[in-house]
């Protein structure tokens, strides 16, 4: 596993306690897991995603990621309806390791309350939290 200083956390994203990231895109929010989470999990072999049309509250479990020896639940950092899922992960779950912020995204959500995004941490606050762990 890498040192926190070796990990990449883009400035334009928001971060949740459970290591998911959220990015605002024209009214919708794209969600994935961050570099820290994928590094901790190791080689990801399976991603279980919800169906388009499912709705979740903020903090609710929306799927799971599986590495060789562990499974972690995924929690939605912002409540809303799933409008798109990353179907490429079905055959290529390793995209989450290789490109957590781009090709390895997980769901696109139409937020119930867009203001929930502001309640998430920015890069600096998130780094502080990681260092405290």
């Amino acid at each position, binding site marked *: 596993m890498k040192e926190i200083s070796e990990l990449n956390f883009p400035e334009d994203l928001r971060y949740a306690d459970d290591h998911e990231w959220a990015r605002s895109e024209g009214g919708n929010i794209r969600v994935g897991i961050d570099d820290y989470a994928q590094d901790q999990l190791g080689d990801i072999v*399976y991603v279980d995603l919800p*169906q388009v049309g499912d709705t979740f509250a903020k903090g609710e479990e929306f799927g*799971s990621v*599986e590495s060789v020896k562990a*499974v972690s*639940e995924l929690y939605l950092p912002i409540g809303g309806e799933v409008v798109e899922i990353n179907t490429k992960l079905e055959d290529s779950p390793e995209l989450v390791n290789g490109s957590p912020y781009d090709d390895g995204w997980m769901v696109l959500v139409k937020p119930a309350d867009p203001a929930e995004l502001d309640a998430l941490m920015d890069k600096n606050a998130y780094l502080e939290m990681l260092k405290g762990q």
Partner: protein
Amino acid sequence: MRYLPHTQEEIAAMLQTAGVNSLDDLFATIPKSCCCRIGLNLPEALTEWELNAHMDALAENTAVSPEYKIFMGAGSYEHYMPASASYLLSRSEFVTSYTPYQPEMSQGTLQAIYEYQTLASQLMGMEVATASHYDGSTALAEALLMAVRITRKKKVAVSSLIHPLHRRVVQTYFDPTGCEVIELPYLENGKTDLAPLEGLEGLAAVALQSPNFFGCIEDLATAGQTTHANDALFIVSFTEALAYGLLKTPGSLGADIVCGEGQSLGLPRSFGGPGLGILGSLTKYMRNLPGRLIGRTKDRDGKNGFVLTLATREQHIRREKATSNICTNNSHCALTAAVYMASLGGSGFRDLSQLNHDKAQYLKNELKKAGFNIAFDSPTFNEFVVQFPTGFATQYNNLLDKKIIAGLAVETYYPELKDHYLLCATETMPKEDMDALVREVQK
């Protein structure tokens, strides 16, 4: 390995390490209302010879073949177990094998279980099979729960011609889930009535047994189409695995999940257990399968090897989110089934299956010739229902005194079918005994 309990000194040392004063303190988190405080009401311990005598006395209370002529199947079948199978299964490597968590020292056990999975998959026409479940009833309950997870719907339809005891286990599993179990009635021809499915919405699965409890072979292809038209998964169960030596596999007729009892595959009837729960599915539902799976892979030198796979579904990793609370499995029973199937081979399995069918067919025809009514006119495998004259129960008991068990009174489970008896004849049933039965019931 020593099978001795801990000494007082060892217990004291462990309590000290755990930081508690007594065993009661250690278990303090268990609510008092859940603790059994009354002493167990057990008789005095017996010597080994007294115990043997006690067991012999118990055994004398049971009717076993060949002393009794048993024409009862109904979910548990008399089949011959080849000596080669008994010999292989008594090998210490198999008898003492524990869950093979360490592939580096368990290749033999892992490969044997992998072979079982392969044979079980072929038997059912499924793409993947687990190894394994307790018995046919729990495998069925797990199959239905699987369908609920996959479809995210909370209603299942179960044929009333699935073994009544298996349905009872399903009800036990489903009661706390809040899911609804609908029972499909049966038709005059002894097959499941699919008409109630029409317009039924929110259905996760439809489950049929074939051959069903009346011994009739269901029309699986049609049932599968109807089920899929309802946007539900099609589950096929069985209690007589040997039937699939002749019948088309459920997988080839549209089943998504197949489950059943594997007792016929080399396991003794033994007062009802242990059985073998066979369960398989299409690959796309593999991650929702409960229970153990062995996979074949290559080691770093490129050599073939076997290893527990997809273990993240299981309880020891996934805890309360596991696909099931199955944490042990009937490995030795699965192994027995594998050895049995491999001993017979493909054509042997088919021949044996044919012999079962032919014997039962002979008995059925002889009873028909003797003027008895065959209750359902659908094709059967090695079991069928006969309607005897009113008040046959007295004669049934007289036959029992003559050490003949004339089938199972169907009325026990289907009160509307008075004087109906489910009869079974397998390969071990001699023609003379069948002729004797036909003579006796005519008296």
